[in-house]
């Protein structure tokens, strides 16, 4: 069954702090979603609501039409992988896999063993004796091999070195292609995962800033470079995210739909047009006043 997640005017208050304010969105279908936000934006809080770790203060979350909180049927279909503290976990790697096998109905044991080999995890070692990177790799193995209809990876790569992260991304995309499911990736390493995601949500200070397909978001960003006067004259009425100047050359990053007639006008004026990466768009869209260089 295809997963569907619906958030309707969801807010979360912890003590006096508004952690999430009035979020509404719908994740429809087995896609790979990216959840991006700066430190403290509320990413993990939102994901912990989806994973039934908490209840929203206001509003409702529905997963396949059901409220997930304290709901076994929904909880067994949602897997939340995050960089948890495992310093007191004395179970062995092998035991962790056996536990997952009992609890996860779609568990693929052969696949789990293949991943254990790829990540070079020692089956007989206790989890708290593993390095942080290996602990994360074990969580990733369990997250992938569980094949839960909703799989959430919240900075699941903590401590993993670049080759291990590369294995993670490779296995994630391969397994998703063969067993499509709803996957939500929350990450700060945007450039590493930009090409994996189909839709992206950006949250900023507890609010949903945007939810769009990666393609359409990328199509909204454009950098324009050329002589100062010309760039200023032609971009005056546009939403400028960032300006930089070097001598007589100015480069601005603009955000918004630009008609092709307008693009041709830029090109005719000899201005250089280029794309903006998802990472840059994210940085400038979530930059707050007083932070600019």
């Amino acid at each position, binding site marked *: 069954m295809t997963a569907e997640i619906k958030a309707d005017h969801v807010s979360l208050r912890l003590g006096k702090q508004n952690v999430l304010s009035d979020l509404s969105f719908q994740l429809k279908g087995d*896609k*790979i979603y990216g959840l991006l936000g700066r430190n403290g934006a509320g990413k993990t809080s939102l994901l912990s609501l989806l994973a039934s770790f908490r209840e929203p203060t206001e509003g409702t979350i529905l997963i396949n039409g059901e409220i997930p909180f304290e709901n076994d049927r929904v909880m067994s279909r949602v897997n939340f992988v995050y960089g948890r503290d495992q310093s007191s976990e004395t179970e062995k790697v092998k035991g962790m896999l056996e536990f997952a096998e009992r609890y996860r109905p779609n568990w693929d044991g052969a696949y789990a063993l293949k991943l254990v080999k790829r990540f070079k995890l020692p089956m007989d070692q206790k989890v708290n004796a593993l390095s942080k990177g290996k602990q994360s790799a074990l969580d990733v193995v369990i997250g992938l091999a569980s094949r839960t209809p909703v799989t959430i990876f919240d900075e699941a790569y903590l401590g993993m070195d670049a080759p291990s992260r*590369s294995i993670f*991304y*490779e296995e994630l*995309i*391969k397994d*998703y*292609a*063969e067993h499509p499911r709803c996957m939500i990736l929350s990450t700060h390493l945007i*450039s590493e995962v930009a*090409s*994996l*995601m*189909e839709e992206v949500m950006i949250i900023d200070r507890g609010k949903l800033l945007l939810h769009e397909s*990666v*393609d359409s978001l*990328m*199509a909204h960003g454009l950098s324009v470079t050329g002589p100062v006067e010309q760039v200023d004259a032609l971009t005056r009425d546009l939403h400028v995210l960032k300006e930089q100047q070097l001598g007589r050359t100015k480069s601005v990053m603009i955000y918004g739909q630009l008609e092709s007639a307008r693009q041709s006008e830029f090109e005719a004026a000899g201005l250089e047009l*280029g*794309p903006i*990466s998802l990472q840059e768009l994210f940085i400038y869209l979530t930059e707050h006043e007083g932070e600019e260089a």
Partner: protein
Amino acid sequence: MHEPMNDGRPIFVQIAEHIENEILEGSLAELGQVPSTNQFAAFYKINPATAAKGVNVLVNEGILFKKRGIGMFVAEHAREKLIEKRKRTFFKDYVAAMLREAEKLDITKKALIHMIEDGQ
């Protein structure tokens, strides 16, 4: 590890271009089978929907065709069509850029033609 898909242009455009190049260079023969979108996705570590979008661009142009339940294949005369298509943008993509650079470096048209003829 392959990370070619980051020259800034949309990834599906780069996938389509990659398949075009394989056809032009002959490593994908006419009527031969094209790797599946899942294979492209795994190889380039991209979302399968993105890979499918790139493949569909070429289906719409009549370069590839789909055999239901079997996969994607290179159409007859695909190479010819691609050569025609690339020739149409050759001036804009390559010659115009070369002329601009030559002007910056004060290389005369005559010198440029000379370079092309001598191949150096």
